[in-house]
């Protein structure tokens, strides 16, 4: 059976179906992250102690007697900064992979998509390093409300990165066979995967200053 509108645009929406589908999915993702951001803002503005590191933990971190310690202080800004640059670069590389297919250059597509995958893995490795440092200092989601929000938001985001690695890895590897049989449809698949990936980047663009810098 032929699936309709995988390449040509539907007359009513003006979009091919996968593109409408991914935008609907991204709309639901906006609500998911929006609810979590809303919780963070509500806690931060409503609870005066939310950003204050509990005394016992401050002591454990060697800050006893040095005045009040506030939360972003214990987050690793240099790692998060590098991760931000890595994700931004990956947004450029994935859009370059799509542009390469539109220029009918499969080898370039493989190069740019490969770089996107490499950036994703660098991001995840740095995130693991960051988490490991927290865990080794016994800074866990249950330690403080701020850390609960921090691990939930960054963990959910990391899960989205892993999801992107799976999809992009498939398109880079076995999925690329479609280029021979149906190049237009394959190009659309890469565009849709790119839209998802840009959204992952977009979420991080707001997470980074909200959690690490403010």
């Amino acid at each position, binding site marked *: 059976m032929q699936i309709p509108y995988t390449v040509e645009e539907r007359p009513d929406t003006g979009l091919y179906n996968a593109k409408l589908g991914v935008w609907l999915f991204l709309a639901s993702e906006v609500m998911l992250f929006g609810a979590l951001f809303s919780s963070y*803002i509500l806690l931060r503005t409503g609870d005066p102690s939310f950003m204050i590191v509990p005394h016992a933990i401050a002591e454990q971190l060697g800050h006893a007697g040095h005045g009040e310690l506030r939360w972003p202080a214990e987050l690793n800004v240099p790692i998060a900064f590098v991760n931000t640059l890595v994700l931004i670069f990956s947004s450029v590389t994935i859009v370059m992979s799509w542009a390469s297919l539109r220029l009918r250059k499969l080898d370039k597509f493989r190069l740019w998509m490969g770089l996107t995958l490499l950036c994703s893995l660098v991001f995840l490795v740095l995130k693991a390093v960051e988490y490991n440092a927290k865990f080794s200092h016994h800074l866990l989601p249950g330690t403080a409300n701020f850390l609960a929000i921090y691990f939930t938001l960054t963990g959910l985001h990391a899960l989205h990165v892993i999801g992107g690695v799976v999809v992009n890895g498939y398109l880079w590897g076995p999925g690329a066979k479609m280029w021979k049989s149906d190049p237009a449809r394959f190009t659309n698949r890469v565009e849709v995967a790119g839209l998802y990936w840009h*959204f992952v980047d977009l979420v991080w663009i707001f997470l980074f200053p909200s959690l690490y810098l403010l």
Partner: protein
Amino acid sequence: MSGHTAEEIRAEVRRYWLVGLALFLLTIITVAVSYLHLSAGMAVAIALIIACVKGGLVAGVFMHLISERQAVYALLLLTAVFFLFVMLGPLGGRLGGVGG
């Protein structure tokens, strides 16, 4: 949505690199500003304005929202309404004394 000739696609590619560069620079500015010890309100305002500009560049250029179909705009308008409700609703409730 996007050009089909090779020349048009190459022009898009140049735009992608320029936007990538702008995003890099704005990220560096965001971090630099955070070390300036501004007042809390000013720091939040600057960081969020820069984040919104960066988000606008990603959505507008990388996600092609500057030249997308009406159906996508309608979908995003509806999403924006619900997003604002989720973001502002609880705050409004708190300021109004709802829920203690």
